[in-house]
């Protein structure tokens, strides 16, 4: 695995709900290190954990058992927008970045002992790219290979149906997209995903706005709709474009924060350190 595909450390802001023991603080009680509460021996028939001092202090004379918080596993999903605009190749190939990200997140999840799943959407959910939560690295690598060759079709309405493929309990969902769709749709997507812990990863490329030529005629074609537009590039227009992207960035941040998640803008290719920093900052 190359350097930038290294796993990162993630942690969750809230205790996870999961039956299976794992690496993240959870709501389940059971075997663990962190004391949670006392319970009666009848309720928790585990004589190894009888606390004699607490039992003596109990006015009813019941045996008190120390109940520990159990660390639970969480399902990690990557929900990727595979619309046509994700095929943009600027300084970095967005699909390549997506595949790198997929492998890195999968490696991190498997390292924690969590299950990893993948859902891709364009106009609808792409069933042939669907990977249910599991721990098989080989299948994930095969999927990453396939993503490179996939023909991307326009549309991003599939994100609205994605929650059907997600588990009912709370999962960690990395929402990877360029978010080049109307903010109203973004709002709807986030409303449907509000059960889950969503990490929005905004996949942009600096070539979209700042690496354009200074002067000259430049025709751009929308990858989604195929519409064309002619631009007479000049420093003034480039400045306006950069301002438009800055405005878009602040709008996205505003919308994501309204749903309790902080977006991470990935503009220079994927680096695992960026995600590590993101989770450190979030925990702090």
């Amino acid at each position, binding site marked *: 695995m190359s350097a930038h595909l290294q796993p990162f450390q993630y942690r969750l802001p809230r205790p996870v709900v999961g039956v299976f023991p794992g690496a993240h603080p959870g709501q389940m009680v059971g075997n663990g290190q962190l004391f949670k509460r006392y319970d009666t021996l009848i309720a928790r028939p585990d004589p190894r954990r009888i606390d004699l001092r607490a039992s003596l202090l109990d006015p009813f004379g019941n045996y008190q058992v120390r109940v520990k918080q159990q660390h639970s596993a969480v399902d990690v999903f990557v929900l990727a927008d595979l619309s046509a605009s*994700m095929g943009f190749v600027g300084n970095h190939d967005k699909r390549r970045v997506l595949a790198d990200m997929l492998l890195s997140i999968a490696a991190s999840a498997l390292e924690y002992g969590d299950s990893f799943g993948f859902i891709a959407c364009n106009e609808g959910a792409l069933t042939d790219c669907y990977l249910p939560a599991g721990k098989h690295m080989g299948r994930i690598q095969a999927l990453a290979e396939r993503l490179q060759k996939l023909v991307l079709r326009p549309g991003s309405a599939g994100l609205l149906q994605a929650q059907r493929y997600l588990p009912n309990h709370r999962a960690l969902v990395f929402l990877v997209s360029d978010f080049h769709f109307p903010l109203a749709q973004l709002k709807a997507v986030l409303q449907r995903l509000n059960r889950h812990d969503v990490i929005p990863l905004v996949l942009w490329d600096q070539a979209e706005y700042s690496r354009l030529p200074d002067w000259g005629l*430049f025709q751009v074609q929308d990858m989604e709709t195929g519409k*064309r537009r002619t631009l007479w590039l000049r420093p003034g227009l480039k400045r306006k474009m950069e301002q438009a992207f800055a405005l878009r960035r602040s709008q996205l941040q505003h919308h994501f924060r309204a749903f309790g998640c902080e977006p991470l803008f990935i503009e220079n290719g994927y680096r695992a350190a960026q995600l590590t920093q993101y989770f450190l900052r979030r925990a702090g």
Partner: protein
Amino acid sequence: MNFGMEYPWVLAGLLLCLLPIFRLGAVANPYPWLAILPPDPFSLAIDALIRLCGVLAISGLTLGLAGAYLQEQQVERIGHGAHIVMLLDRSNSMDNTFAGKAPHAQGEESKASAARRLLNQFVDHRQHDLIGIAEYSTSPLFVLPLTENKAAIHAAIDATALPALAYTNVSKGLSMALEFFDSRPVTGSRIVLLVSDGAAVIDPDSEAALRELFKQRQVSLYWVFLRTANSPGLFEIPDDPRDDNAQAMPERYLHLFFNSLHIPYKAYEAETPGALQQSVDDINRLENRPLHYFERIPKQDLSTRCYAFAAVMLLLLLGVKLCEARP
């Protein structure tokens, strides 16, 4: 401004003008989302201009291929001049010199050739005149209708170099000359210039008809009488009253007849080429009334201009192409 096409079916190529409206010849760079780009009126204007250039270039080429031309047109003008009908005598005697013999020696000139030379000069002096030519011999000959085409007039005058025909029948010639003015607007002067070296008797029926025609047509008459030496002149009164009849002196009686028409009439007796020159100059000077006429502008080929226009547009587009930025 009337346009015409040599090959109108080529105009179907104008449909190609739609091409630049749908596609610009620029490289389409894929871009994830156009809606995020700020609106830019300047770019829109440039875009529209480029498309317009493309449309104009293609339409210019198509019109050029279709062979666009401006149809022949007439421009109304006011000038000075006259409608002149030259009525030339083609009788045998015109081929003789003023001395009354066939030209043999070097420098001798027949009456016909002298008339030809001077009439050609006369035509060159009269810029805006409409000139028609009729000839007469035994019968009248229709040569050239009233026209402003100088080359045709010269050619018609030069054609009198052919050997002359038979006799002299002036009355039919005159009526044909007067018919030239039929259905012509009365503008400027109307002149019949009769060039002859003799006359003939006009019978009373023709005489009455001619009187009426001259009145109707409001024509002035100039008679250049190329008098051969020793022949009776126009104004000569014979010594013997018995000779004073139309058969013996047809010239004198024709002159009297013309005088009795009450139209502007002038007779010149030209006995030498110099005198003929004098009479032509006289007409040249006198008949210069304002003339309302139409000048013809010939058909103009526009395809060269179309190609030049298209070339300019293509050069502009080439410049635009060179301005295209590469990411």
